[in-house]
């Protein structure tokens, strides 16, 4: 099954490349600037304040520098990183840098107000959140160097005017069809957090469009297809949403051309302007379809032959894999 790499980045008030951002909010209710956020760079910070009577509005909401939650949450889901019903994704890496009114608690595996990607069910369950264990964090000064370990955390490597800085980095493999960006708020009220998070993962990329696209000759369809469901120079590993959608698009874009679509759910290879005679054995070996279905038999053999020739040509450019003994 072909895999593709996905990459997700979130900006909640801070920016990736800023060296020592002084993003913070004020949650001291006695302060004259209560509810204000400072040095917001990209996106918005989060502020939890449930008392809408005393605080009908917050300055950071008014000036568009924060998103306010008016109810508390134990684990709050900020975003769905991916959700592939019936498919597999693999969380491989994340880095998160958070500024918050709270910080690490007990040990760094029990973080508060630090957004982390987590393969939790929806709605989230707390016990699934903190999958990485560690006994300590490192006292360090900014900038910190990327360590060779699967989980590292730094607490206050630089200082901000109010609150704490928490940095966590993890790499490994967790297989899950769903991945969410969550924060353990622990039902706290009157707290704020900002952060920058980047996540890398892999995912099953099929079903596939099997149509060698030549961007020199057919720029528009090439561009549309690439934007719509990926592109592979092999002409084979071009992932899409589902087989029916791919077929619909290809029928519209290439009514007179030969193409195939591989449905990885049913293991069916759909053939358009093709018959199995034109399907090369190496493609059958690669996909191992349970069935081939002819959507349209070729009216003109040259169209089918052109598809086969181009596919073979692309395949010949791929270095052969080592043969099994």
């Amino acid at each position, binding site marked *: 099954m072909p895999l593709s790499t996905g990459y997700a980045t979130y900006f909640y008030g801070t920016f990736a490349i800023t060296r020592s951002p002084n993003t913070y909010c004020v949650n001291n209710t006695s302060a004259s600037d209560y509810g204000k956020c400072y040095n917001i760079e990209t996106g918005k910070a989060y502020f939890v304040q449930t008392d809408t009577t005393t605080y009908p509005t917050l300055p950071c909401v008014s000036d568009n520098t924060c998103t306010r939650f008016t109810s508390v949450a134990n684990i709050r889901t900020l975003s769905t990183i991916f959700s592939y019903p019936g498919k597999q994704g693999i969380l491989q890496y994340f880095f998160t840098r958070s500024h918050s009114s709270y910080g690490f608690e007990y040990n760094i595996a029990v973080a508060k107000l630090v957004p982390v990607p987590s393969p939790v069910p929806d709605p989230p369950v707390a016990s699934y959140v903190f999958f990485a264990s560690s006994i300590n964090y490192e006292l360090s000064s900014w900038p910190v160097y990327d360590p060779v370990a699967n989980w590292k955390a730094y607490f206050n490597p630089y200082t901000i005017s109010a609150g704490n800085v928490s940095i966590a980095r993890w790499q490994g493999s967790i297989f899950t069809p769903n991945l969410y960006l969550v924060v353990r708020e622990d039902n706290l009220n009157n707290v704020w957090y900002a952060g920058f998070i980047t996540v890398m993962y892999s995912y099953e990329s099929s079903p596939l469009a099997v149509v060698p696209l030549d961007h020199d000759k057919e720029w528009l369809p090439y561009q549309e297809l690439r934007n719509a469901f990926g592109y592979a120079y092999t002409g084979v590993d071009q992932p899409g949403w589902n087989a029916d959608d791919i077929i619909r698009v290809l029928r519209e874009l290439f009514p007179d051309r030969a193409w195939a679509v591989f449905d990885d759910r049913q293991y069916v290879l759909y053939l358009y302007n093709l*018959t*199995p*005679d034109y*399907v090369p054995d190496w493609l059958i*070996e690669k996909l191992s379809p*349970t*069935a*081939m*279905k*002819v959507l349209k038999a070729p009216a003109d053999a040259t169209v089918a032959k052109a598809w086969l020739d181009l596919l073979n040509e692309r395949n010949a450019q791929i270095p052969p894999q080592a043969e099994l003994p």
Partner: protein
Amino acid sequence: MSGKKPDSPGQPPGRKKVKIRKGKKWVEVDVDGEVKKGRFKYVKFVDDDGLDTYWISPE
């Protein structure tokens, strides 16, 4: 003796029935032909959706 099994009575000459596994069900289909692709052998028939279909041979 050729050893070839004669067609059953009532079956059109040249057509045979095979059972294929579709999802969780075994269904019997009238086969129009066979195609060999690489290591795999497929039997040809017209599926319920009206499409010419080549299904991996159960044999």
